[in-house]
């Protein structure tokens, strides 16, 4: 621009031109602040840190740039009213580069990045977005992915560039799209969208299978109600429902109207870049868009994307020939269709059609032609950017500084890297009642790597719900309690992993005066125990830490049917009304019966203390028997039953007390854990696991020491002899000879000594054996079997030892001269003595 203006200044000195000049200058001033922030960022850079490919273009790149220029000219010529294409922006060193070469397909070694969801989320989290300045113009430059990843800052083109590289690396058929989108998309403004974590999951509602009408199903009893009245009733109900529905719909519409974004002055002009993933590869059923700022996927029919100028990936570049008047809804993404998409490199089209090898051979002639064709076409030069690499640490930190906050409609989502926060928090979702995010409704927190196995905590309506994974002591699975009263004897619900518990407890619900426990799969068929507590009596006792336990008023226990017992003996429900000294038993119903036998006991007060010596009287029981003709139970049996029930009552009271204790213990544990909030570190995590680190360091240190020790071990064989002559600095010739002689003599002596020693041992063994043999021959007859066996054992062992000694001696004899020669050789080459030999 500057150049043109300057030219104008020189060539036309007229008054008109002067005017023009003035006008143009006025424009220049307004334009400056737009361009300036870009140029300084480039010029400020120190290019030395970039490799050659960043600072210069290869011949092939130059060729392709020329090609690109040609393409651009044709395009401009043909479509004068269309906006320029994003083809060859400057890179960080101010060099023009073709956009396709800025892509570098990469597959990183993280499991999550093998799927598009993981890639999109990573890119969205890892980089901080920067909007285009101005929003309706293409950026001047496009940096390499490695630079962007280092800076963790980029615009939509940078985002799309990296995401597309990752997707191509993972095998997706992905393209960068340059086009237009709504303001919300361009600014990554999700505050009008529902948070993806809050979106109601689609539940597959299974329709209850209607039982097939059987041949002999009994007819239902005749309905004697008036059909007309029922019909009228139904009609009225339906009308009311419709009214309700209508009203609701109207309300919804009103709200939607209110929440609509304000009209955007630049609607349809805002430039944006995103990623297109085409169906066909990696089991992707159909085309979709990925918005790189948020990592969300959109169908091509989405109203947020308003138009497409061009698409490209590392193979080719296509300009869109279709009308975008109605957004991308009806657009075809069949890039082979030259009517709709104008490609840049003709040759690379072939890469899209995969021709099987066999066919190629069959049509050899054709093939040759094709090859000739190929040669004529220019193919894409190799990428100029450095490989994309993300270290494990970077990957785990995710967002810049490990933190990221996203605002959604009536919700705020905060993300933290693992191990960043001391309490292991990784995600926090706050849901608000209003759009201004002031009226907090619900807070949901996710944790990772907690030592206490806490995974989520939800704070809603004054209730706190904590979820745990398996592996806690006492097998707690979920804990719901009031935020205002977290102490014992308050309202709470605890759910347990019942399979891990000995008593099969799966749920315990509490209120200040009640406690209900649910059990699963118990041997005694108990499935429910309900306790009613009374108020504590105020005592003037010395104030202890806890006070007396709450008095138990009533315990109700329910049992499943035990098929081993007859129903009339199998207790379904037993109620201990403790403050009335009453026990109520209800038995199970016998199969066809509709009534159940019951029995009430009125026990004398303090019966449990007297034990077995309870006095019996007939008015202690009251019974109802289903079968009036059955013989009534014997008093003896009833009496024994009562004694047993008194014991059961005590056991139940015990169980209740221990449950109370357990609750207290769990609460105490939780409190301690919350205070400590320790994080568990995997044994495989070499970075964070201090113990493992220490261990490794220790091992390294040991290895080092061992090495040093070995070095020392290689001792100087001349040292003792040198010491004899007083470690002189210089050795004379005679001394050298003498040293050599001494050293060799010493070795010789030692070798002989060793041989002698072996021989000595050999002789000793042989003589011992001989002696034993003689002994054996003398006493052979009188010997017991065991002695004999012992003797044979000894013989075989002795023979073995003798044989070994013999072998050793032979070997020693063989090796000794070698050793001698070796030493002599060494001495000859010894730097101290070599002067004289």
């Amino acid at each position: 621009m500057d150049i043109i203006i300057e030219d104008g200044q020189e060539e036309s000195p007229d008054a008109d031109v002067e005017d023009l000049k003035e006008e143009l200058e006025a424009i220049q001033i307004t334009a400056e602040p737009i361009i300036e922030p870009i140029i300084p960022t480039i010029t400020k850079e120190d290019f030395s840190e970039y490799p050659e490919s960043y600072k210069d273009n290869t011949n092939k790149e130059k060729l392709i740039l020329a090609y690109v220029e040609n393409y651009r000219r044709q395009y401009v010529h043909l479509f004068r009213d269309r906006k320029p294409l994003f083809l060859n922006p400057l890179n960080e060193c101010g060099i023009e580069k073709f956009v396709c070469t800025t892509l570098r397909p990469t597959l990183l070694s993280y499991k999550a990045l093998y799927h598009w969801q993981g890639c999109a989320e990573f890119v969205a989290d890892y980089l901080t977005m920067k909007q285009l300045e101005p929003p309706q113009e293409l950026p001047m430059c496009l940096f390499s992915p490695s630079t962007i990843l280092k800076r963790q800052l980029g615009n939509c083109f940078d985002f799309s560039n990296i995401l597309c590289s990752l997707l191509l690396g993972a095998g997706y058929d992905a393209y960068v799209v340059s086009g237009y989108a709504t303001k919300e998309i361009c600014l990554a403004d999700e505050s009008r969208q529902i948070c993806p974590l809050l979106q109601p999951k689609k539940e597959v509602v299974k329709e209850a299978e209607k039982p097939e009408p059987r041949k002999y199903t009994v007819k239902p009893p005749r309905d004697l109600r008036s059909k007309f009245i029922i019909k009228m009733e139904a009609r009225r109900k339906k009308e009311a429902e419709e009214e309700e529905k209508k009203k609701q719909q109207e309300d919804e519409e009103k709200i939607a109207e209110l929440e609509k974004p304000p009209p955007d002055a630049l609607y349809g002009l805002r430039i944006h870049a995103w990623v297109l993933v085409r169906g066909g590869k990696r089991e992707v059923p159909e085309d979709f868009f990925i918005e790189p700022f948020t990592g969300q996927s959109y169908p091509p029919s989405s109203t947020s994307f308003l138009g497409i100028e061009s698409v490209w990936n590392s193979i080719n570049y296509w300009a869109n020939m279709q009308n975008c008047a109605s957004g991308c809804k009806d657009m075809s993404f069949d890039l082979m269709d030259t009517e709709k998409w104008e490609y840049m490199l003709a040759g690379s089209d072939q890469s899209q059609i995969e021709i099987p090898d066999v066919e190629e051979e069959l049509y050899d002639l054709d093939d040759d032609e094709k090859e000739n064709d190929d040669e004529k076409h220019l193919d894409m030069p190799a990428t100029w950017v450095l490989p994309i690499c993300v270290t494990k640490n970077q990957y785990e930190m995710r967002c810049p500084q490990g933190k990221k906050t996203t605002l959604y409609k009536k919700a705020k989502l905060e993300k933290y890297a693992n191990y960043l926060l001391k309490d292991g928090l990784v995600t926090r979702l706050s849901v608000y009642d209003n759009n201004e995010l002031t009226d907090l409704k619900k807070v949901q927190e996710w944790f990772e790597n907690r030592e206490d196995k806490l995974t989520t905590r939800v704070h809603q309506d004054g209730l706190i719900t904590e979820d745990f994974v398996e592996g806690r002591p006492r097998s707690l699975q979920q804990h719901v309690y009031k935020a205002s009263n977290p102490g014992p004897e308050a309202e709470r619900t605890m759910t347990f992993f019942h399979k891990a518990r000995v008593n099969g407890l799966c749920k315990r619900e509490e209120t200040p005066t009640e406690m209900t426990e649910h059990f699963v799969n118990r041997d005694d068929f108990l499935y429910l125990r309900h306790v009613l507590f009374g108020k504590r009596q105020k005592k003037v006792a010395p104030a202890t830490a806890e006070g007396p336990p709450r008095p138990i008023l009533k315990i109700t226990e329910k049992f499943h049917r035990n098929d081993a017992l007859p129903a009339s003996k199998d207790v379904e429900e037993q109620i201990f009304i403790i403050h009335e000294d009453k026990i109520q038993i209800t038995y199970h119903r016998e199969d066809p019966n509709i009534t159940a036998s019951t029995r009430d006991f009125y026990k004398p007060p303090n019966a449990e203390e007297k034990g077995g010596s309870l006095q019996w009287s007939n008015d202690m029981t009251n019974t109802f028997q289903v079968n009036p003709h059955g013989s009534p139970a014997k008093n003896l049996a009833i009496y024994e039953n009562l004694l047993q029930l008194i014991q059961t009552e005590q056991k139940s009271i015990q169980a209740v007390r221990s449950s109370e204790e357990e609750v207290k213990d769990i609460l105490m544990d939780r409190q301690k854990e919350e205070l400590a909030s320790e994080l568990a570190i995997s044994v495989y995590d070499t970075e964070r696991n201090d113990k493992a680190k220490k261990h490794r360091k220790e091992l390294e240190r040991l290895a080092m020491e061992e090495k040093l020790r070995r070095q020392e071990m290689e001792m100087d064989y001349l040292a003792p002899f040198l010491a004899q002559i007083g470690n002189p600095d210089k050795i004379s010739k005679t001394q050298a000879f003498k040293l050599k002689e001494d050293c060799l003599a010493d070795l010789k002596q030692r070798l002989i000594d060793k041989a002698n020693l072996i021989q000595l041992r050999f002789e000793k063994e042989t003589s011992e054996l001989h002696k034993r043999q003689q002994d054996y021959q003398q006493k052979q007859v009188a010997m017991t079997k065991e002695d004999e066996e012992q003797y044979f054992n000894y013989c075989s062992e002795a023979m073995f030892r003798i044989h070994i000694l013999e072998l050793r001696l032979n070997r020693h004899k063989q090796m000794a001269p070698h050793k001698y020669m070796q030493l002599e050789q060494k001495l000859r080459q010894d730097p101290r003595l070599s002067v004289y030999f």
Partner: protein
Amino acid sequence: MSRLYDTVEPSVIDDEMLRKAVEEQGPKEEAGKIAKQEGVDYCDVLSLRLDFRNILKVDNLWQFTKLTKLQMDNNIIEKIEGMDALVNLRWLDMSFNNIEMIEGLDKLTKLEDLTLFNNRITRLENMDSLPNLHVLSVGNNKIDQLDNLIYLRRFPNLRTLNLTGNPVCDDQGYKLFAVAYLSHLVYLDFRLIDEDTRQKAHSLYENKLGELMHNEKQAEVAIEAEKKAAQELLKHKDAYVEHLNSSVLFESMYKEDPEGMKLALLPGLQDMLKDFQDKFVEVCMKIFEFGMKEYEKRCKEMREFNTCIQDAEAANKKQAVTVIDAFEEYKKKLFTELLVTSDAEVQERKMNEYHEGVNETWDKLMGLEMQLVDQLEETIKDFERNMTDLMSQLVEYIQGLITQVRDLENSHNEKLLEMCMTVLEKVVKNEMDEELPDDLRMLFVDKDTIVNAIGASHDVHLIKIDNREDEIVTRSGAWLSGHMQKIHADECARNRARVVEITNYIDHLRDEIDTQFMP
């Protein structure tokens, strides 16, 4: 050891002895007092000890049906008897008696622990009906046959065996023999069998044991097959077509037919007979197949009916139970309220309310029951109609097939007659080139004789076929009426029981409030 007879007077198990024993061994203290007051039924006693009483004969134990443990050691019993009623017995101790033979244990199928220590038993036998036997103690007896131990192989649960003091133990290989043949044993003669012994025993008797096991296995397989065949036959009988899938009927026709047998020897008849049999059996097969098919159909129909009835009853029961539960809830509330109020007027009103509630409940329950009765009645009628149709179809079709059988017989008879005529002619003309057996020749005396013989044979055959047909018709008819009667009777009994139950419950409800709140 056994005592001499005349040292002490032998005693008899009589009522007094039993009463005393039960009382002594029964509950103590307060419970004992109660027991004494109301008396203990023998049928409730679980364990009984009758030791050191000089009992000679076991008797009068028939009332102790629930007994699980019986001790009669140190008596002078000579014969195991009188224990057939003790079907629940698990623990029997008859050591130190004078028993000479194991017997009388057939009914004690639950027996797990049997002690016959110190008796005069010579053989292990008569214990086939004790599959649960876990512990067997027969020490200090007179068992002398090592092979007799093989008898114990039939107890898969036998873990403990005591044989010390028997002559058989003097045998050198006794221990290894026992261990080898009774591989499930854990304890032998008060000692744990160690792995070493087991190995040794196994290697010693490997061959013999293998053979034995092979035989046992074969016997087992044979029994299994027999069982299966019997089951199959039972099924065929239920379908009324037993043995029709083979030539049994055809053979039975000739079995009681001496003339036919004789005639069968006629030259050239063999082929014809063969042809006749094939056709005959083919039709029989058709009958069989149809019968089985119909049987399956019937079974399915019955299953369907039963499930539907059960469903209806369950649904009805559920409704009734909800009614009762609701009332029980109300009752509980009312009673607590009644306990609290002292106002006579309020009490009166509440009581009236309660009685009304009881009446209402009665109405509801009876209404439900009436509804169920109506529903079931209708369904049963439907079922009866369908079953009658099915049965008549079956009978008609089978009768049709049997007519075919009869036709076959008729045509065969005609052919036979024709053939005999030609033979007779030849015989008369002495042109017969083959020799006929004598008794067959006797028939070919003149035309009447041969015609009579053939007619007799034909009649026998027809009677057989008619009998079979009648059997099918009568049996199927009897089954149908019996089955339907049973269904009706069951339904009737069910209804009675339910009505009694409801009445009983309502009475109880009325009594309850009176006993609790009436002064």
